[in-house]
């Protein structure tokens, strides 16, 4: 099992994320692309001392960026995880 710091990059604080937290007790994390759902579940549980009921992940492809000439490159690809907690558990984001 990977240690937590090799799984979770950061918590994403976004408008959409706050709505998910309020309505479904879900939190959004930016995770390393190599992490799988089990890694994420264990990492979140051990870091925040909560119970995870569901993890959904999605790979975000890096954005296409252009230099001054049409010389295309991409920003890094990353992985996003939506973690649902057991009812009553919370993560303090302040």
């Amino acid at each position: 099992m990977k240690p937590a710091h090799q799984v979770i990059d950061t918590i994403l604080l976004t408008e959409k994320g706050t709505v998910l937290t309020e309505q479904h007790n879900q939190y959004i994390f930016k995770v390393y692309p190599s992490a799988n759902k089990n890694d994420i579940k264990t990492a979140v549980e051990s870091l925040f001392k909560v119970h995870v009921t569901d993890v959904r992940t999605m790979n975000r492809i890096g954005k296409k960026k252009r230099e001054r000439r049409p010389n295309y490159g991409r920003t890094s690809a990353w992985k996003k995880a939506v973690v649902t907690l057991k009812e009553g558990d919370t993560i303090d984001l302040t």
Partner: protein
Amino acid sequence: MNIEIEELSPCRRKLSITVPAEEVTQEYDEALKSWIKHANIPGFRPGRAPAHLVKARHNKDIVERLRDHLLPKSYREAIDTHKLEVVQILDMDEEISVKPGEDMSYSITVDIKEDFSLPEYKGISLKKQTAEVADEEVDKQIDELREQRATFEDIDDRAICRGDMAQIDFTATLDGAPLLEAVPEAVGLDKGDDFWIQADENAFIPELGEGLAGMNIGDSTDINVKFDDKFAVEALRGKEVDFNVTVKNIRARVLPEIDEEFIKPFQVKDADEFRAKIRDSIQSQKDQGEQNRLRREIEKFLLDNTTLELPESAVNEAADRQIRRIINDMSQQGMPEAQIMEQKDAIVEAAKGSAANNVKLRYILLKIADAEKITVIDADLKREMSMMAYAYGMKPADLEKELGDNNAKEEFRGDILMRNTLQQLFDLATISE
């Protein structure tokens, strides 16, 4: 809100103001709410970020805004509830801590305008001094006018009298040696040919001018001149110089007769009318002087019959202003800076003496204006400002802008108000002959 007032001097108060915690919290929440509406936080559209995030990022700014809002509010409330008329804020705590959930307390030192009672200002009794114009005064005035238009005529039938112009050749010697050798600085004073000089104390060397009286054309004589301590050429001060003078020409001062040509510029018909006109102008000058004197009497009455403690800061400020004005006037008259600095102490002393009375008078007159409901209408203010602008050679709009920037417009309005009030008092006064 809790306000404590400590009396430091008759016109100085220290206010200790405490805003209770609940009020601070309430104001903080409102400040936060208004901040959230515009907060730009990544991941959120403007205005959609949750309060705790905004707080985490912008707490410092919010608290600053809260302080900027709470301080004037509480201060105004304090002076309103205690009816203090603040002249100037002198001192204020520099670090004032504002935290939601805690009391905010600070102290502030102010100079205030004390409430005072006015003397009975209606019907101040004044004694008018009637100013008659004597015939001698008219004569004197006419003589002065003639002097101003005097002409000079060549004469050769008499000796030089005082006031004549004389054309002379002169050479100067100091202890027998030519002056220029003894005193190299005295260039131009050592000799002169065909030099015109006035034969009285107005000459460039007064004693030389006076010494010429009684000489005829072709006469030559030695005149001994002792230069005094104020003579322009420093090296010559206190020295005795012999001037050998030869008179070549004499011109007598001829005063014009009062004839048609003389009175033409005055737009009068004949000599009698001219005299009457001169008399009128002297009379109106005297009347104006008398009016001014009576106004000063009113001012004196008000000052003498009112007891009033003056705030120190206002007096100091007035004195400063006065000093600046005096110095400004002096330098505009072309007085060198060194000379002004020499007189500095005298200026400061004079300004301080009059500043206290000026401030007192201002307070009294403004209070009377308030009681009598005298106001300055904007049209008057505009007119006065335009006049002042023209006096300074500025455009009225520019001056207005400058006054507005310096908050001096209100001061200016006060000046006009004072003048109007004084006029009102003058109209109300009982004047006896």
